[in-house]
């Protein structure tokens, strides 16, 4: 985001986080990090750029609004003979550094949504294919197609990775994870990882993710969150697929062999 705004490469940008002297950021959660941080970062980069342009414009005796930064160069949009590298522009600065900070609140530009602008208009649809063994009661997820509207994907690989993670967690929620509480003694009996069933490699199906780009013009990046949304539809879709397979609805998760066999009147 910052590199794009300044016309330099991402490698030339150093990110420093995790120090209380830095400006406040959103909490890392709630599916709002990307939607909150990227517009602020972009706006701060824009401010810093414009200040640098002011200084360069003074040398070229022109107006800062006529300048552009691209591919490591700063140039005049009408008179391309006026150009210098970004690095030379920095060397010629009248100050040692330019500091800029920006924020993005939920009433960005006077526009407001009750659920907060960083969420955008999230929506997702997931399709699940399962195999139900009607003799043993075991459910196996074969394939999941997950279509997600998530504004502008900032890093496509990361978005897909988040969708994969959400889907896998959703499979765990649908088929495996539960807390076994001993009623008499009040102890959780499956607190070790060999007892608390999480999906491992063999339980993970083919996951096809479809990223639906959706530009609402609500911030300088149009990025929304994808963390939680990737997880919402999965368990429901798995349960619906099981219903579609065996014709009986199971209303409780995880859908274990015990519940499937009971639903099929085999116990």
């Amino acid at each position, binding site marked *: 985001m910052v590199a794009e705004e300044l016309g330099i490469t991402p490698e030339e940008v150093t990110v420093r986080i995790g120090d209380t002297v830095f400006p406040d950021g959103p909490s890392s959660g709630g599916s709002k990090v990307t939607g909150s941080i990227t517009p602020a970062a972009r706006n701060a980069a824009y401010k810093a750029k414009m200040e640098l342009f002011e200084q360069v414009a003074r040398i070229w005796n022109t107006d800062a609004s006529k300048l552009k930064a691209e591919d490591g160069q700063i140039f005049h949009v009408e008179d391309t003979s006026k150009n210098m590298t970004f690095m030379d522009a920095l060397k010629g600065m009248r100050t040692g550094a330019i500091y800029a900070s920006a924020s993005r609140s939920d009433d960005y530009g006077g526009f407001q949504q009750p659920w907060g602008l960083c969420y955008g208009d999230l929506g997702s649809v997931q399709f699940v294919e399962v195999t139900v063994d009607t*003799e043993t009661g075991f459910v196996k997820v074969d394939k999941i197609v997950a279509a997600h509207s998530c504004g502008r994907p900032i890093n496509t690989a990361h978005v897909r990775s988040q969708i994969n993670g959400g889907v896998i967690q959703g499979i765990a929620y649908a088929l495996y994870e539960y807390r076994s509480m*001993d009623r*008499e003694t009040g102890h959780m*009996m499956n607190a070790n990882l060999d007892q608390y069933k999480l999906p491992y490699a063999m339980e993970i199906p083919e996951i096809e993710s479809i990223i639906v780009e959706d530009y609402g013009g609500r911030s300088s990046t149009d990025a929304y969150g994808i963390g939680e949304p990737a997880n919402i539809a999965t368990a429901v879709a798995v349960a619906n697929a099981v219903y579609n397979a065996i014709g009986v609805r199971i209303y409780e998760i995880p859908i274990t062999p*015990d519940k499937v066999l009971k639903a099929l009147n085999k*116990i």
Partner: protein
Amino acid sequence: MNKFSWYEPKSIEDALGKVNATVSDILAKNSYKSSAIFKAGGIDLLDLMKEGLVNPGTIINIKNIPGLNKIEYDQKSGLRIGANVTLGEMESNKLIKDQYLALYQAVAQAGTPQIRNSATLGGNLAQRTRCWYFRSIDHQCYRKGSGTCFAQEGENEFHAIINNQPCASVHSSSVATALLAFNAQVEIISSEGKKRTVIIEDFFVHPGDDSRTENILNANEMITAVIVPAVNENTRSYYIKQGARESHDWAMADVAVVVEIMGNRCRNAEIALGAAAPIPIKTKAAADSLSGKEINEGSAVNAGEIAMKDATPLAKNAYKVPLFKAIVKRAILKTV
């Protein structure tokens, strides 16, 4: 975990001269400072230590004792697998795969590749139950010698459905299920140098016979080898394990079937079940029902029904009954 000292014995005699406790001895007395216990692959013992259940004063590392890590085969006497042979070594042994398919299948599905590369056959047989009450430091359960089996009225979804009184734990070795169907024997040596060989059925101890021990090993004894009798060209076998997951999991139910097929008739069938009872069991009635019969859907379904006729499931594990019926049937059908 408490501090412990480490001892590397040079020989079987050296190890047997030093050892003075089994896991059940330490669970009963908790006198850890003076106790010296065997460790082979360390898979079970280290878990028991991390769980706070056993705190041995000395660990005797028997894994490096020479001579216990061989797989030998003789056409007459069969397979002799040293106690320190790892499950990984068994898995990659071509003869086991070719002649004892069910054993190969059981070994190949145990734990993870990393665990199989460390776990030994002796340690696998001598491991303690994974019953979550047994494994909980907060529950003084029947298998630890206290008299209460919490699983009877508690969280018993993974527990035993056959012979599940007075304790409903299941033995965790799925390799034992296959060895049982092949009528394997366990070779044991004591500190006096006395050797005894027991059939694997007699190696495991039902909680009804002794609440504290899961096998017949005394503190001054060590498994040296497991002997699997020779099979013939008519022998067919198959093993199925069903866990909550396909990856790295304990068996919820597992079955090994060994049959001899003459013509299209079945002879000398053996069916062994794991995770059904507190110890791996054979179901003789089900196996006998196949005798002289053709193996087909009908005879296989029937054997599954017979295998489960004595089942007395608890509140949360009745699903295991149809599960066992299904995998017994499938394993039988896979032999032809």
